């Protein structure tokens, strides 16, 4: 069984080898003419206007949390999907119930504004307002 993963091992070795050559050869052979522009984070991109080492909004963490939950959902979908052809309608209904339960949670997140990125403040939405105040305090 483990031998089935030999192609994967070969792919990993090839990928690492390719990366090592692609990074290594220019480092050894390429002429080194450094200037200020070459050390910018992005070539031909937006000129950096602030230090990247700053606190990020909590929104990122929330999205990551949602991602973890739905990732685990996918983990359960995977073995089910492999065998679905042989399982029939009952299995389909089972999974529909499973997804429906999670959909309830998703709708809750949506309604609570977990997917909002603070674009506009809706009337009566104290949560977003308190965040705006907080970010103003932070800037001062």
């Amino acid at each position, binding site marked *: 069984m483990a031998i089935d993963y030999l192609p994967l091992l070969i792919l990993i070795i090839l990928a690492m080898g390719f990366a090592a050559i692609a990074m290594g050869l220019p480092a050894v052979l390429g002429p080194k003419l450094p200037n200020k522009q070459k050390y910018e984070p992005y070539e031909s991109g937006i000129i950096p206007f602030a230090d990247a080492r700053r606190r990020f909004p909590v929104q990122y963490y929330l999205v990551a949390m949602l991602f973890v939950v739905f990732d685990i959902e996918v983990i359960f979908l995977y*073995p089910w999907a*492999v065998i679905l052809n042989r399982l029939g309608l009952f299995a389909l209904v089972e999974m529909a119930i499973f997804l429906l339960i999670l959909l309830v949670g998703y709708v809750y997140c949506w309604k609570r504004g*977990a997917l909002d990125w603070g674009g506009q403040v809706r009337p009566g939405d104290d949560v977003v307002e308190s965040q705006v105040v907080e970010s103003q305090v932070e800037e001062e």
Partner: protein
Amino acid sequence: MPIEIPIPTVTQVIFLVMALFTAACGLMVVISRNLFHSALFLVGALFGVAAIFVLLEAEFLAVGQVLVYIGAIATLIVFAIMLTRGMMRGRTSPMNHVSGRGALGALVFFVALLAFLKKVPWPEQAQAIPVDESLIAGLGDKFVTTYVVAFEAVGLLLMVALIGAVMLARDR
């Protein structure tokens, strides 16, 4: 005589390389000067564990390891570091005032584990895993037949986690 050796040896070599890789990454997680680098080394360690799962023929665990731990948990940890103001300011020391006691605890645990490994009478030949439990397809079958209640309960648990995460992050 020399012909029958190669195939187990290749597996052993792969195991040895992956075990060393995992251990080295694990060590770097602990001693890295920058917490962000620790998080990246953690991804390497998790990947090594996934490779060992493959060697143990635990395919589903390997897939889960890559998809959930490397894909999601590592992202979560990286975000957690980026969200913490102090962590984003340069270097953090990997040592604190309890590091000596921590090392002692780790040593005691290692010795206990070693004694345990020596004491357990390990079978010479590994027991064959029932096909319907080892293969991913078999697992999918069990989800919707034998363990269907537990499966739906997992869905409920995930929903609670989802709502809990939003409540914790939003309601302050």
